[in-house]
């Protein structure tokens, strides 16, 4: 679990001063992904593609419940047990002893006959081949006593409850000033309710694991965003000590939050492998992913805005209802960003939880903001129209440099929202937009523009790294960080190279292994900042060690071109490392800067859409985002993150919608043919720019998060463009053609 030498992380509790990363010789450049050649040539194995050298791995196939609530009445596995090649059929009747009770970090499987959701595992069939296991799995006959399931969010609103807070810094409700009074007194008001559907992560790589035991030590090859929590979940569920578990996840085909949770593929491959004494691998099929793993819950959001006639917001109210299984504490924090985005004297936010007997709801790219801004930023558009004010100007009018709930005592660490709005408007040609909807027509297309602000919370997590320089002058950096396709290998290479004055090809990054120093993992846009800071600190320690070995003053020496230089003297790092090499460790421990300063990334989205006047089809024509993310670590991967998020926004606005079947409590359109995400033809010219910004309060890299910012507000910009194009205001996402059609005038 831990490397041999204990790591002493650096407390980050005051703004970063000048440091070698400020040189930006390597950092910030859009260098190609260092793992790119491996990926495009098939040499970066994903979990299910890992082959155990023993060549004895067996294959498991899961059988999932087909009802949402009730219990297993009968389960007949006899035929499956006698099917060709079958080695084991596990059910609740012969399951090994497991930890419990079930919680976020303890995931017992088949613990009893109770069915709590559709998609819960009721049997595992392990056979010599996938085909044999799959055929036998189809022979497992299960009959259920079925209880009615709650599947309709709106129907559950009257019984909604107050969930426990996600963290002390994230209260469930907030009230500042007197919202009721401020709203009542406002000259211009908006009171609108928006709904967003259940959504699926739809990452390319399905969840998969291969478990290999060596005595009582488990090695799990899997696809997970946060290895320490995966290892912890395995240990607590399988009743192991943490040091008995090693998790490997060097390459991950996307996660978007889905792979923050540990699922049955991991737990049951380990269980079966232990029992059978051979490696066992399990992959979820695509339909199984929709039931067995997590999704983003639907929301109902009421937004109330009260403003003066000049557009100054007086009152902001945002309430959100979301769903999850009974006993689950995760709720969609859809109103959280409303606490920070705009100034107003009187404010309230509230979250309520509705029990839904559906698959588990949890984080999906920008939980909270992604859907919260779909509501808030449409309400702002509606307010701008009512005020006869430009939507950009309305947002600029209500910009703030401090936390509007806490006041000037809690300033933003950096906030260039107004710059993003102005630059975006200028680059996009926003001045050509007609303030009156439905004015521009090109053939059958009604064309319009929309915009929205973007905000995403900044976070910093503890993270550690080790750095070793060898006698060839090769720097090897190790951390149990993950790269979920975001470019982590590359930016960490750049940070390490910048610190030691080495080109990327002399830096070897090792990720995705719990034998390496424990890291933040990937999630919540904190991965680059947290793991990058750890690499920074480890390399800073290595610089000191190298300087001392050279007899230099660490504070006055420079690292360039594989050399350490001071007062005109240069010594090669390779010679200093010598045959023994030289190693250092470091880590970051966040202080209280997040309490003292409000911290978020900001941006502005602009979209132009065409709406088919006959059919209601919406096609995005172009999109532009301008973002302030602190220091850009890699211009190319940052841009990919931003435009990838914006494309998620197109999906949220126009098509993404996993539909529950109210009789069965499952998702009806559970594959990528029927759960629509944007395809190439849906994605026109999408461009992203970054305003100049460094944020020394955020972390030593002076970078903020970018992985989720692109989705935040993007869908609202598309929705507002649909209104501007067609005059059809839809408050029920996604804005599919049937909803647009219902608002279009008769054909002429």
């Amino acid at each position, binding site marked *: 679990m831990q490397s041999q030498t204990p790591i002493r992380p650096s407390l980050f509790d005051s703004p970063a001063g000048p440091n070698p990363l400020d040189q930006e010789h390597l950092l910030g450049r859009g260098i190609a992904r260092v793992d790119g050649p491996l990926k495009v040539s098939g040499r970066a194995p994903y979990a299910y593609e890992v082959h155990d050298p023993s060549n004895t791995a067996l294959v498991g196939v899961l059988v999932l419940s087909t009802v949402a609530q009730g219990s297993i009445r009968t389960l007949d596995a006899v035929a499956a047990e006698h099917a060709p090649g079958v080695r084991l059929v596990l059910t609740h009747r012969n399951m090994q002893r497991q930890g419990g009770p079930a919680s976020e970090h303890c995931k017992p499987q088949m613990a009893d006959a109770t069915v709590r959701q559709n998609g819960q595992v009721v049997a595992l069939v392990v056979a010599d081949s996938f085909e044999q296991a799959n055929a036998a799995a189809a022979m497992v006959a299960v009959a259920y006593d079925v209880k009615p399931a709650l599947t309709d969010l709106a129907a559950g609103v009257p019984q909604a409850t107050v969930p426990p807070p996600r963290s002390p810094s994230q209260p469930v409700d907030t009230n500042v000033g007197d919202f009721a009074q401020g709203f009542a007194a406002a000259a211009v008001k908006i009171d609108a309710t928006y709904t967003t559907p259940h959504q699926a992560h739809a990452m390319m790589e399905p969840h998969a694991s291969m478990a290999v035991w060596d005595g009582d030590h488990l090695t799990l090859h899997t696809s997970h965003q946060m290895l320490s929590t995966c290892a912890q979940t395995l240990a607590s569920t399988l009743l192991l000590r943490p040091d008995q578990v090693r998790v490997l996840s060097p390459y991950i085909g996307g996660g978007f939050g889905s792979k923050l949770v540990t699922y049955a593929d991991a737990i049951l491959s380990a269980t079966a492998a232990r029992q059978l004494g051979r490696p066992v691998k399990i992959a979820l099929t695509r*339909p199984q992913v929709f039931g067995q793993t997590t999704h983003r819950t639907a929301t109902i959001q009421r937004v109330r805005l009260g403003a003066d006639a000049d557009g100054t917001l007086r009152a902001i109210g945002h309430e959100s209802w979301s769903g999850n299984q009974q006993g689950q504490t995760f709720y969609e924090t859809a109103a959280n960003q409303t606490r920070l985005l705009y100034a107003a004297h009187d404010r309230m936010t509230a979250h309520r939880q509705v029990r839904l007997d559906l698959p588990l709801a949890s984080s999906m790219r920008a939980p909270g903001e992604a859907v919260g801004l779909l509501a808030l930023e449409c309400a702002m558009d509606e307010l701008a129209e009512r005020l006869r004010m430009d939507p950009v100007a309305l947002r600029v009018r209500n910009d703030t440099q401090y936390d509007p709930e806490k006041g000037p005592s809690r300033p933003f660490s950096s906030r260039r929202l107004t710059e993003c709005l102005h630059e975006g408007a200028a680059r996009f040609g926003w001045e050509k937009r007609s303030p009156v909807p439905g004015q521009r027509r090109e053939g059958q297309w009604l064309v319009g523009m929309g915009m929205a602000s973007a905000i995403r919370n900044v976070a910093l997590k503890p993270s550690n790294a080790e750095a070793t320089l060898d006698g060839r002058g090769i720097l090897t950096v190790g951390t149990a960080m993950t790269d979920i396709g975001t470019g982590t290998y590359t930016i960490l290479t750049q940070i390490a190279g910048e610190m030691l004055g080495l080109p990327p090809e002399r830096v070897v990054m090792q990720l995705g292994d719990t034998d390496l120093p424990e890291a933040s993992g990937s999630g919540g846009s904190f991965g680059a900042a947290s793991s990058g800071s750890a690499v920074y600190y480890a390399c800073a320690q290595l610089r000191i060690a190298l300087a001392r070995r050279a007899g230099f003053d660490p504070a006055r020496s420079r690292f360039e071109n594989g050399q350490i230089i001071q007062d005109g003297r240069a010594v090669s790092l390779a010679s200093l490392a010598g045959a023994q090499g030289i190693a250092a460790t470091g880590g970051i421990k966040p202080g209280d800067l997040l309490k003292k300063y409000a911290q978020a990334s900001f941006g502005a989205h602009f979209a132009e859409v065409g709406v088919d006047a*006959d059919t209601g089809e919406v096609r995005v024509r172009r999109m532009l985002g301008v973002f302030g993310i602190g220091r850009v670590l890699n211009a190319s991967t940052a841009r990919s993150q931003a435009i990838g998020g914006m494309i998620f926004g197109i999906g949220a606005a126009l098509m993404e919608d996993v539909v529950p079947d109210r009789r069965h409590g499952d998702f009806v*359109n559970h594959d990528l043919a029927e759960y629509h995400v944007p*395809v190439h033809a849906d994605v026109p010219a999408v461009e992203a720019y970054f305003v100049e910004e460094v944020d020394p309060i955020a972390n030593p890299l002076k970078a903020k998060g970018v992985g989720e910012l692109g989705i935040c507000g993007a869908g609202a910009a598309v929705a507002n463009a649909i209104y501007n194009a067609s005059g059809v205001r839809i408050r029920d996402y996604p804005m599919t*053609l049937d909803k647009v059609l219902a608002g279009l005038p008769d054909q002429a």
Partner: protein
Amino acid sequence: MRAFSYERPTQVAQAAHAATTHPDASYIGGGTNLLDLMKLDVAQPAHLVDVNRLPMERIELLNDGSLRIGALVRNSTLAADPHVRRHHAVLSRALLSGATAQLRNKATTAGNLLQRTRCYYFTDVSKACNKRVPGSGCEAIGGYNRIHAILGASASCIATHPSDMAVAMLALDAVVETDRRHIPIAELHRLPGDTPQIDNTLQPGELIVAVRLPPPVPSVQLYRKVRDRASYAFAAVSVAALIQARHGRIELARLAFGGVAHRPWRNHAAEQLLVGHAPSHALFERVADSVVTGAAGQGSNDYKIPLLRRTLVATLRQATEG
């Protein structure tokens, strides 16, 4: 996927014999639909007769001007064929609107005709479906039925036929040639009635060897596919139109519709409303009214009725614009 046996004959007669004599045999061409259904356990053929080595790969222009399209001609090949592009443009357009480039490279002409419905409940073996298990019920009725039929449905089944190509072929009056007979394409696909498990009128083991297109009809040919995203989506509704106008009057009109019924849909009465008349919005509205007469939604697909109406009007407008 269940275990199955497999053979790859080289003669049509061999293939037909194999398919007729093996119980639960199925032909496989491109496999873009059948293999998915086998993996989902929706289809469980005991024996696969791979037709890819049969001599059915040619596109032949016959002396009478008709075109004979071999059953194995890939969708991408057919769409790109110069004669098709020039004289049967509606077919090329329909093909290119379907699936993806990768799927079109693999999918065959006969396989496209015989692809099965995309009904969510048909492809999920945990659900009741009369098409998959006769007599088990239809859960699309009363369920989520956004992609389902508004015309010709029954109390047993509200599934649609997903093909774009077949809609264009129906408008072209294509004839399906099997190892036994010629079947007008309008008689190939069935309505569900109370036997929705039977998609078409082929007999057990009957093998489609070609599709014949009659000599070209000089006309404006359009295929308008309305869908939820710009590519890789089945039609919410589609309209294939062949319109011939002279001296301001419509002389010939053929209309076929996709995404609305258990089979590609045609309405000759509606076509006749156009013939002999000058194009006008009022005329198109009357034709559209005629097409949706008797249409019924099931809840989530109610929008298809106004959508079909409007799409047809728009297509006729486009086909008759100067």
